[in-house]
């Protein structure tokens, strides 16, 4: 019954939307700006590829319904031309080329994951087509001198840096030396997570912490018990996991099953994997690195406050937006801003406008340094507390104190 009602709702809203769109395009818009995107709709990254696409779509729809983009004295609607890169870089590079050469796309939105971005960036660079990407965080993207690559997100090494800092801070509070702390890590064997690893390694070394576990998880992982047994054996003071959605879900599942006790657990992709919804109390105490949180006080004209974006997104797609969706939506806003400031649709002019971006969005401030990465926005660290993501670091945004240490499983309900 419910599904029938839903269907009806869908149909009417689709019809309304269709009418609105056709009316609008006839009356208001002078043309269309096509953004090209190759995202992972299938394959091992399809979970987050979906989040990325939903983020783009929501922002595009909102911008169009609010009158489109004003460039000079004309208004344009935006649309996105999608291809599916199937989570393989072999496809990504070809699709970038296809978007540019065959479809005549002049502006590219990024794919999901650092590996895919790494494959596409040389192509967009060669053709001098700007790419604003929201899901390629590996620092190796920003050492190549790319001039047309802009990333709205903070780079990998910042993801878990605050977790390591927190670990050191708590050690000092307890009267121990940070250098006595040990760190264990399991990182997926892909460009993103390996750069996370490089970051954690450097941070741990900075404090003189010892890295007692350092495993590379295969991307098609189905079981990480051998790594978790190591965690049992070596009792690291901080255990970090980075493996996209699959790694996060598997780690929580198996740590609860095998009752692996660590005083502090930090990971990436908690919200993309929806660990609270899936694991309930098993997910408690987990620290999650995030580019964004709905509780932050950022806002903009298109998508409103961070919390409003979260509500709108959930109404549209039936799940709470992970930060991957938020940063993707922000990438669209960055383009809109650049088009309007450039006052022209010439790729070079848009590129220059992008380079001078200084924009506040619901997702946070965006300002690019000369390598193209966003240096204005800090990462946040959530902790799962009583079934909610609560920001615990950095101090400026913290809504609560970190709960530490994680009690052993035998004492948890």
């Amino acid at each position, binding site marked *: 019954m419910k599904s029938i009602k839903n269907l009806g709702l869908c149909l009417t809203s689709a019809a309304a939307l269709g009418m609105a769109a056709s009316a609008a395009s006839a009356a208001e818009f002078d043309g269309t700006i096509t953004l090209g995107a190759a995202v992972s*709709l*299938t*394959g*091992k990254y*399809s*979970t987050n*590829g*979906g989040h990325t696409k939903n983020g783009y779509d929501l922002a595009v729809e909102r911008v169009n319904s609010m009158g489109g983009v004003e460039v000079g004295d004309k208004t344009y609607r935006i649309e996105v031309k999608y291809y599916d890169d199937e*989570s393989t870089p072999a496809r990504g590079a070809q699709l970038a080329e296809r978007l540019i050469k065959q479809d005549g796309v002049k502006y590219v939105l990024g794919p999901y994951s650092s590996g895919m971005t790494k494959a596409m960036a040389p192509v967009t660079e060669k053709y001098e087509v700007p790419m604003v990407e929201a899901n390629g965080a590996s620092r190796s993207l920003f050492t190549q001198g790319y001039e047309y690559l802009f990333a709205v997100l903070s780079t990998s090494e910042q993801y878990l840096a605050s977790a390591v800092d927190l670990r050191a801070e708590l050690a000092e509070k307890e009267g121990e030396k940070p250098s006595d702390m040990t760190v264990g890590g*399991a990182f997926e*064997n892909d460009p993103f997570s390996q750069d996370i690893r490089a970051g954690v390694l450097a941070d741990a070394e900075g404090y003189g912490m010892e890295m007692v576990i*350092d*495993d*590379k*998880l*295969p991307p*098609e*992982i*189905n*079981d*990480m*018990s*051998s*790594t978790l*047994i*190591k965690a*049992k*054996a*070596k009792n690291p003071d901080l255990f970090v996991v980075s493996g996209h*959605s*699959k790694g996060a*879900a*598997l780690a929580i*599942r*198996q740590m609860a*099953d*095998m*009752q692996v006790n660590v005083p502090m657990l930090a990971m990436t992709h908690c919200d993309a*994997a*929806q660990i609270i919804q*899936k*694991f*309930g109390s098993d997910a408690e105490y987990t620290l999650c690195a995030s580019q964004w949180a709905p509780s932050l006080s950022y806002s903009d004209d298109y998508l409103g406050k961070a919390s409003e974006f979260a509500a709108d997104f959930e109404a549209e797609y039936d799940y709470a937006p992970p930060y991957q969706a938020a940063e993707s939506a922000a990438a669209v806003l960055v383009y809109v801003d650049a088009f309007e400031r450039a006052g022209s649709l010439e790729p070079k002019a848009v590129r220059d406008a992008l380079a001078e971006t200084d924009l506040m969005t619901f997702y946070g401030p965006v300002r690019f340094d000369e390598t193209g990465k966003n240096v204005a926005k800090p990462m946040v660290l959530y902790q799962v507390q009583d079934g909610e993501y609560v920001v615990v670091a950095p101090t400026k945004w913290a809504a609560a104190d970190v709960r530490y240490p994680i009690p052993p499983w*035998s004492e948890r309900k």
Partner: protein
Amino acid sequence: MENLLLIFEAPALGVQLVVEGILLGAIFALAAYGMALVWGVMNIINIVQGEWVILGGFVALGVSQAGAPELLGIPAAAVVLFAIGWLCYRLVIFRIVDRDLFTSILATFGLSILLQQLMNELFGSDVRTLDPGLGTWFMMGGMVSISQVKVLGFVLAGVIAVALTLFMRNSRMGQAIRATAQDARAARILGIDTDRVYAFTYGLNAAICGAAGALVVMAFTIHPYQGLIYTVRSFTIVVVAGLGNLPGVIASAFGLGVAEQFAGFTLGAEYQNAFVFLLLVAILISRNMLLQRQRKYLK
């Protein structure tokens, strides 16, 4: 190296690795039974095996979402997958039964990529899991933990092994399957409807995989594109065990599970798969050399 020493210093870890390996092996064994069966009876290498496992997981998820108790998902997945397997035989598989192995590999590979994307479209691309509400047992002062779901998988693997053996030995259908496996043409002459036998065999395979998939979604996680792991593992197990050798399948499944755990522990998780496949190649080559030596003796 350092990790290897650790096992000797704390034997409980070794025990834990063995336990995890055997429990993991039990799930692989379930997927491998069906592969051995289909390979032996129908001469088909079934690459779509892993997709049946994942599909079983999705069925179990559906059952629990409908409000039924989670554990009911295991038999439900088996029943649904039996039907799907039967249907799949009627649509495609029956055309490749008499062909060479190679044809079956490619055709089922085609089915496998088809199903992957179909599942991605139908069930979404999310990483899914299901909490059966079972707990964990502890031994050796909490150093060794045994998840009850995995034990359930282990028990199920045992039960299905015994049931399969009895079924093959005593039931009408089982005897027909064995006769067909030995000589399909002779079986046909003797009045056995081999087509039905094949359909049943394939359905049975899918059903066992489905049950395994329900366990996978409860003990680990599933994703539409994760099937290949189970295909490749069950394939390795069957090759090592040889055809028509159920105890061999069980032994090599446990062996593989344990070997994987130890390789992951001592070499690091990144070499876990490499180790398994090199082991496979080594076993094949060494067995071949052994055979050659025997052939020379015969000459």
